[in-house]
């Protein structure tokens, strides 16, 4: 299936889902003539029409310029890219427990390893130094309340 067709079908599916969600927007006594669901419904219809247009164009084999994502790697490359998002998600889930300092040090270590750096003592030391620098910048300099996690008794 061509990229144009994927885009068209995706846009159409999104427009249907968004329209369905727009019909669930509650009415309000304070509402105006357009209403809170007015623009969303127009946008859903517009997206649906554009999706159909993109799909039809793709079927008629009109070329759509390719993007700059890796071409050759295929599924493996996409899976590897998604792994980066998974690392970010793991950071979001674990940092409240680990705390900002420990979570960030571990994050630096694992992202660098995932990106091709061989695990070593040097990498661990650079990750630890990096985590501490970021902690100094965000917590001490900018005063951001980062999660303390398991270090709460020490830092709290």
């Amino acid at each position, binding site marked *: 299936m061509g990229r144009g067709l994927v885009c068209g079908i995706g846009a159409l599916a999104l427009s249907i889902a968004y329209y369905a969600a727009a019909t669930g927007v509650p009415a*309000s006594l304070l*509402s*105006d003539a*357009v209403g809170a669901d007015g623009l969303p419904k127009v946008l859903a219809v517009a997206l649906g029409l554009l999706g159909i247009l993109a799909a039809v164009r793709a079927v008629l084999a009109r070329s759509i310029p390719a993007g700059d994502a890796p071409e050759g790697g295929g599924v493996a490359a996409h899976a590897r890219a998604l792994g980066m998002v998974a690392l*970010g998600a793991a950071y979001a889930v674990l940092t409240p427990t680990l705390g900002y300092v420990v979570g960030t040090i571990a994050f630096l270590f694992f992202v*660098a390893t995932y990106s091709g750096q061989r695990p070593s003592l040097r990498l661990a030391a650079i990750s630890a130094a*990096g985590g501490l620098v970021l902690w100094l910048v965000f917590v001490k300099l900018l005063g951001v309340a980062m999660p303390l996690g398991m270090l709460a008794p020490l830092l709290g």
Partner: protein
Amino acid sequence: MNDLYTAWTALTSGWAIPAALGGVVWGIFGGALPGISPSIAMALLLPFTYGLDPVTAIVLLASVYVGAEYGGSIPAILIRTPGTNSAAATVLDGFEMNRQGRAGEALGISLVSGLVGGLFGLVVLVLFTEPLARVALAFTPPAYFALGMLGLSVIASLSAGSLVMGLIAAVVGLMIATVGTDPVSGVPRFTFGSPDLLGGIRPILVMVGLFAVSELMVQVSEPAWARTSTRDTRLKLPNWATWKRMFRPHAIGAVIGTVEGVTPGAGGTIAAFMSYNEARRWSNHPEEFGHGSVEGVAAPEAANNVVTATALVPLLSLGIPGSNSAAVLLGGFLIHGLSPGPMLFERNADVVYGLYGGLLVANIAMLLIGLVILSPCIWLVNRPKPYLLAFIFALIVSGVYSIDQSFFDLGLVLAAGALGYVMRWLGMPFLPMVLGVVLGNLVESNYRRSLVLADGDHAIFVQDPVALGLLAAAVLMLVVSLYRETRALARAREENAAQ
């Protein structure tokens, strides 16, 4: 002459000059960190201004604003992460220049364009505050709606040769902007019961995800041999030939930045995008845009730095803070018992002229500090790729969390990153989506407010002269863009057929 003497006395009698230098350093630092907006960087210093004299305090805050708006372009060029909303337009050609090994050149262009823009904005602020204040007052809800439509009209030419894809991206951006509390009735929309979504989705989260996270995903998925490194490791200031090429985009940025700056609520983001679009339209080399164009960096950088000065016009003359940063500056005025407005120029001329002088020092300091720090910044992004990716990602997650201390925001950024990756695979341009997210609320809320004011009569949009003019300009821009787009496609088909 007397005014110059007042400015000089105000600047030199206290700590205003060191405050301007320190403010610019802090601003560049804050602006370069994703998630720390200019207004946050300013707000962090607000408590420290209590003990300062009024001129020093106001100069300090205004200098942070100048530094932060410039600082946002550094990560935009070096790591594809716009530090501020208004730096998003710089990503396109700035990062492309970096990819071509021209990071030093891109940073040099952004630095001098920022300086040119900042100084031009300062001249406008000093000479034309009073007449321009009337422009700000002429903006009613229909005019704001028309301004938003004018901003959206550039989508056709930002669609990088695929109008349908660009329009799909723009509509999805507008859809993202509808998430949160309805601007008129206050009912929740598309929040699915999550309190985190009631305030809507901040444009910076979408931008960081689309540009930066998707870039990390692409980088990590590339085989090692495909990775390129920046060859240009030193800051490179523009030569005379480059200066000549930058004249037109600077002029475009100056005009658009002035108009957008004096309009409360418009801000540097719209100015940057519109300047980028107009610079391409008037360029002798439009084909270079998106592929590392000098003008593609110069125009948005000049425009958003003009805005740092001209955004102060409605604040100083009318007491209207047109942006978050201006609101923080207003806080600085109020802390010291000063009330911005027409009487400020009569009662506290020393503060006003001291501010003008401080902004001049801040712009010069921006150049000097840029000359010192930019080469080390380029060196930093030339470290081994795995370390670089890890530190960029850690900086992004830390910066995003620091906006609202929310891991939910981080989830949104990751989702936007995955969306950006898919969009890149599909060949779908980012900028129309960014414009949709930035302008969606402005367009919808003012459209509906206008209709409430006019009892549902759409004639209000043509009865208001400012709205009519802006809408006519939007239609004209759209028609010209569509014509050029169609002509380019037809030419490409003819060339293909000839081959």
